[in-house]
């Protein structure tokens, strides 16, 4: 069972695990694509404030689509076939992985970060939707292209089994996937338009007040009330949590806004469209506004708030983010409608 490493799998470091894996797998199939492009085509951008889902007792704030969304969108592209499987049995899951490696197929896996020994200690939380690509085996260690790491890493088999069968929210249940078929060329134009359309619908057209631009405003309203409702200490924890979700590894900074702006910029280049380039700059402004909020929030968390840096002021900053984003997505919506 000693599969030699596929030397031809090129590892590229990316800012986000799922889009990184998608882009790396497509590249391996001979479709050159950047991470930002995979993120955009996969309609990865989102906003949701879901206080009824708790992470360590803190409300869920997400700046991107649900885990697995990008891969699902990519798998739907005409001409692309993706093999996907979940397992009950751990031995069978590992045997199938080994069999695929033996056939020189790089395999994408969903894993729980807590069990991956090569991760920095401080990042080993119980987060179960981390994607990576296994592309070889050396003795008892697997060769892994983990998109958030600069170089490929090694992981012992025993640890990889644990990571693949992590329990809790979003349990991966050994999920593995690989591309079986890919077209010669992608019809980028259509895919870009569809991707943007889907994100516009999520950000502007949601009937639920917790999602999209409305969700951002909802968060602003709640955030302003935190100190009086939760007390100073709990409010600080909630605030820190919002920033952590926004700037954590894998967001590319600014809660994925910069990554999406990079996608818009690349699309503008691809389609020779100045309008999209302008949208990209507007979205960059929104990302910068989020960053400004994060910087202020961090000072408040550290008890080093400058005069005027109150929760009310931060809520105002978030409302500005909402206004900027609404503006961008209205413009994009308009652009999509104009495109035949």
């Amino acid at each position, binding site marked *: 069972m000693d599969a030699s490493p596929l030397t031809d799998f090129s590892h590229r470091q990316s*800012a986000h695990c799922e889009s990184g894996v998608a882009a790396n797998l497509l590249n391996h199939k001979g479709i050159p694509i950047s991470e930002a492009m995979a993120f955009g085509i996969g309609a990865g951008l989102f906003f949701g404030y879901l206080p009824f889902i708790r992470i360590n007792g803190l409300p869920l704030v997400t700046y991107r689509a649900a885990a697995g969304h990008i891969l699902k969108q990519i798998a739907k592209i005409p001409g692309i076939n993706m093999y996907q499987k979940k397992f009950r049995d751990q031995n069978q899951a590992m045997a199938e992985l080994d069999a695929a490696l033996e056939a020189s197929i790089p395999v994408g896996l969903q894993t729980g970060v*807590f069990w991956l*020994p090569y991760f920095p*200690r401080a990042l*080993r939380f119980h987060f179960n939707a981390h994607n990576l690509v296994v592309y070889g085996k050396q003795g008892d260690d697997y060769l892994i292209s983990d998109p958030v790491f600069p170089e490929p890493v090694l992981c012992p088999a025993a640890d990889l089994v644990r990571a693949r069968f992590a329990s809790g929210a979003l349990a991966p249940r050994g999920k593995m996937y690989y591309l079986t078929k890919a077209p010669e060329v992608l019809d980028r134009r259509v895919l870009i338009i569809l991707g943007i359309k889907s994100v516009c619908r999520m950000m502007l057209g949601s009937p639920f007040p917790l999602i999209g631009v409305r969700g951002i405003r909802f968060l602003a309203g709640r955030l302003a009330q935190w100190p009086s409702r939760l007390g100073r200490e709990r409010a600080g924890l909630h605030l820190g949590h919002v920033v*952590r979700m926004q700037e954590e590894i894998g967001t*590319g*900074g600014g809660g994925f806004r910069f*990554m999406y702006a990079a996608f818009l910029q690349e699309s503008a280049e691809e389609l020779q469209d100045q309008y999209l380039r302008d949208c990209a700059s507007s979205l960059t402004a929104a990302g910068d506004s989020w960053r400004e909020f994060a910087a202020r929030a961090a000072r408040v968390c*550290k008890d080093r708030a400058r005069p005027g840096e109150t929760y009310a002021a931060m809520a105002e900053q978030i409302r500005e983010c909402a206004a900027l984003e609404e503006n961008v997505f209205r413009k994009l919506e308009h652009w999509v409608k104009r495109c035949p």
Partner: protein
Amino acid sequence: MEITEQPADDGITEGLKIVSYSLNSKGEYELVPGLGWQPVNVVNHQAWQEIEKKIASSREQVTAGRVSCLHYYMTANQMDIGLLARYTGQSRWLVRLHLVPFVFSRLRPDTLKKYADLFQVLPDDLVRGELKTPIYQHS
């Protein structure tokens, strides 16, 4: 965000260089390696302080004999009763029961082994009530 705003702080990534999107001088996005951003380190530090506070209080409770050492291992590995129950394939109330020192000291070897395997310690450590480091601090 522009490239020049990239910080130079070791932060919590232990020197792991991550990449993020930044604008270069031509106003085009580039993937730029960096060590994380100061505000992120602040909030991550805050989160870890909270976890360490919980671990310290659990340690105290174990030494005082109010809960079994299982409580320490659960807290130190950032689990709660629900997650621990899932990992060991038991019901939540059973796990809750095992947090009582009286019950824990009378556990069958196979149940102890389940916990020991999960937390990557020896069953003996659990019996003696030794408080070893959590999994993510094993080298």
